[in-house]
C-alpha cells in the first residue's frame, strides 16, 4: 500500500524538524555492535555430543545439495573450536534435513528447529523457487554458477550454527564486520565477500566457546572475545638461606564472570608467562625467566637459586591473535638471608 502525497502542514513541518534534529543526535551516538553472536534458545547439546541427521523421507535434497549439506556439517565440526555438538550423517539419525517447500516462512531460503539435546530439523528451499524478492538459485545446482546465486554450503552452515545455539551476529551498521560470523541476518550472494564462508567466523566461535567451552586448556580463545585473565604468583618459601633454591609457581586463569559462561575460571595453558625481578629500592623490572608449563592446566613454574632479597612478579602479555586480556600478578618478595663467610663472594681487589 502506498500513501499518497500530502501537503505539509505547519505541525508536520515542525515535527519533521524535530525528527531531523533527532537524526543528528542519533548519528552522534556510537553504535553498539560487534561481539560474540547472541545466544539462541535455552537448551544446549551435551559437550561434543554426536548429533546424527538423515535426509527427510520424501523431501531429500538433490545430490549436489546433499554434498553441500554434508560439507557444511564437516565445516561445523572442523571449525567449531569448542566442545559444541558434532554433526554426522546416519541413516538412523533422528534429526531430519529436508529440501523443498518446507516451512521457512514467506521469504526464507533456509530454516531450522532445534530440540536440544534430542534432535533438530533443517530445510533448504527448492532451487528455482520464485519469491517476491526474486528466484532462488543455489550455486551448487548450476553448472556455471552465476552471480546472484546462494552458496548452499554457507547457508547450511548458518543453519547448523543456529542448531548449536547461535543467534544472528550483530554487525556494525555498515556491515564491515560481516565476515566475522557466518550466522548472519541475511546471506550474501555470489560474488559478494562472505557469500561462500565455509568455516565459522570468530564471533560465531566466541559464543560456541562461551556456551560449550574450549577443547583444551591450550586452545586459543576467539579474537571476538575480550576475556579478563587473572595471574597469580607464589613461592614455596618466601624467606630462604643465601643461595637456596626457590620455586615460583604462577597460575593463569580466565576471570570468573557470569558472562563468560563455561570459560569462567578456565586454566590457560601453553602461553608465555614471564618472571620479572626488581631489586630492593629499584623501580624497573627485569625479565629473568620464562616460566615453564606444568602438567596442571594454567600452571607455570620455575626454580632458581637466589642470593639477594628482591621483589618478583609474573607477567602475561596477551597476543592479538586471541581474545584474552593480559595481566600482571601481585608482587611477591623473597627475602634472602645474608651469606656466611664461606658463601659470600670474594671482594674484588683493585690493582
Amino acid at each position, binding site marked *: 500500500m502506498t500513501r*499518497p502525497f500530502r501537503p505539509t502542514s505547519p505541525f508536520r513541518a515542525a515535527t519533521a524538524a524535530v*525528527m531531523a534534529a533527532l*537524526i543528528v543526535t542519533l548519528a*552522534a551516538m556510537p553504535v553498539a555492535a560487534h561481539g560474540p553472536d547472541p545466544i539462541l534458545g535455552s537448551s544446549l547439546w551435551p559437550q561434543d555430543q554426536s548429533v546424527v541427521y538423515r535426509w527427510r523421507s520424501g523431501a531429500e535434497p538433490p545430490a549436489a545439495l546433499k554434498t553441500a549439506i554434508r560439507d557444511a556439517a564437516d565445516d561445523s565440526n572442523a571449525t567449531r573450536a569448542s566442545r559444541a555438538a558434532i554433526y554426522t550423517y546416519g541413516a538412523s539419525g533422528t534429526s531430519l534435513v529436508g529440501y523443498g517447500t518446507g516451512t521457512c*516462512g514467506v521469504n526464507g531460503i533456509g530454516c531450522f528447529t532445534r530440540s536440544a539435546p534430542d534432535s533438530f530439523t533443517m530445510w533448504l528451499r527448492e532451487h528455482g523457487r520464485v519469491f*517476491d524478492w526474486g528466484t532462488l538459485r543455489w550455486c551448487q545446482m548450476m553448472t556455471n554458477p552465476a552471480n546472484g546465486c546462494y552458496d548452499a554450503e554457507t547457508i547450511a552452515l548458518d543453519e547448523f550454527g*543456529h542448531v548449536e545455539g547461535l543467534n544472528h551476529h550483530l554487525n556494525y551498521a555498515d556491515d564491515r564486520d560481516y565476515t566475522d560470523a557466518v550466522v548472519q541476518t541475511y546471506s550474501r550472494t555470489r560474488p559478494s565477500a562472505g557469500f561462500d564462508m565455509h568455516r565459522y567466523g570468530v564471533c560465531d566461535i566466541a559464543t560456541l566457546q562461551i556456551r560449550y567451552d574450549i577443547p583444551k586448556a591450550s586452545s586459543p580463545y576467539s579474537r571476538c572475545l*575480550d*576475556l579478563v585473565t587473572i595471574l597469580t604468583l607464589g613461592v614455596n618459601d618466601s624467606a630462604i638461606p643465601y643461595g637456596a633454591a626457590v620455586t615460583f609457581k604462577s597460575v593463569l586463569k580466565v576471570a570468573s564472570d557470569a558472562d563468560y559462561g563455561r570459560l569462567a575460571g578456565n586454566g590457560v595453558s601453553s602461553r608465555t608467562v614471564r618472571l620479572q625481578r626488581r631489586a630492593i629500592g629499584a623501580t624497573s623490572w627485569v625479565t629473568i625467566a620464562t616460566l615453564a608449563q606444568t602438567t596442571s592446566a594454567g600452571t607455570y613454574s620455575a626454580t632458581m637459586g637466589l642470593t639477594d632479597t628482591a621483589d618478583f612478579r609474573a607477567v602475561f602479555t596477551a597476543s592479538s591473535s586471541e581474545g584474552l586480556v593480559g595481566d600482571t600478578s601481585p608482587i611477591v618478595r623473597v627475602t634472602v638471608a645474608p651469606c656466611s663467610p664461606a658463601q659470600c663472594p670474594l671482594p674484588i681487589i683493585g690493582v
Partner: protein
Amino acid sequence: MVHRVVRRSVRTGSVRVMVACLALAGCATPAPTAPPGTAEPIPAATARVPATPSPSDRPPDATLAAEGGDPVAAQLGTYTWGESGADSPWLPGSRISVGRGEPLAIAFDRPIGIARWTADYVPAFATDGSGAASLGRGGGPPLFPAPAAGSWTLVVTVRFAGDAGEARYFWRLEVF
C-alpha cells in the same frame, strides 16, 4: 563483560529534541517498555515461548506508518523465534511514501514487548546492507525519523522481550 560495551551519550543541547521525541512516542528509551495497550511491561523472566514451536509460531507482523498515513505491512526477513528460525535474503521491502524527517512509527499485530530495535537504511535496489546508515535505535516501540529525500530500503531489526526472538522487517521508502 564479554562485549566491548559502548556507552551512549546525549548532548545537553539535544534535550529539547529528546523531550519532543518523548512527547511524540517515547522513542529511544533505554529500558524495555510495555507495548501499546499493555498495562504492565512484559517481565523478561516470565515471557516464555513454547519449547517446540508449531509452524505457526513466528514473530509478529509489523506495519510502518508516518503521522496521518496508512500503515504499510513489512516484508518479514530473517528471524528467530523460540527454538526455530528462518534465513532470508536482503529484501526490497514494501513500498511506502513519506516526507523527509517525518516521524515513522512501527506497530505490531499483537501486543509484545520490545527489548531493543535498530533502524538502518541503504539506497533502494541495494543487494545487501553494506554501507547502511542508522536512523535510530533504542528500546520500546520503534520510532525514528525518515531519511533525506530519495528511494531507500529500510530495515528494522527488533529483538523482542523475554528472549522470545528477533526479526528483520523491510520497507521501501520513497521520501519526498
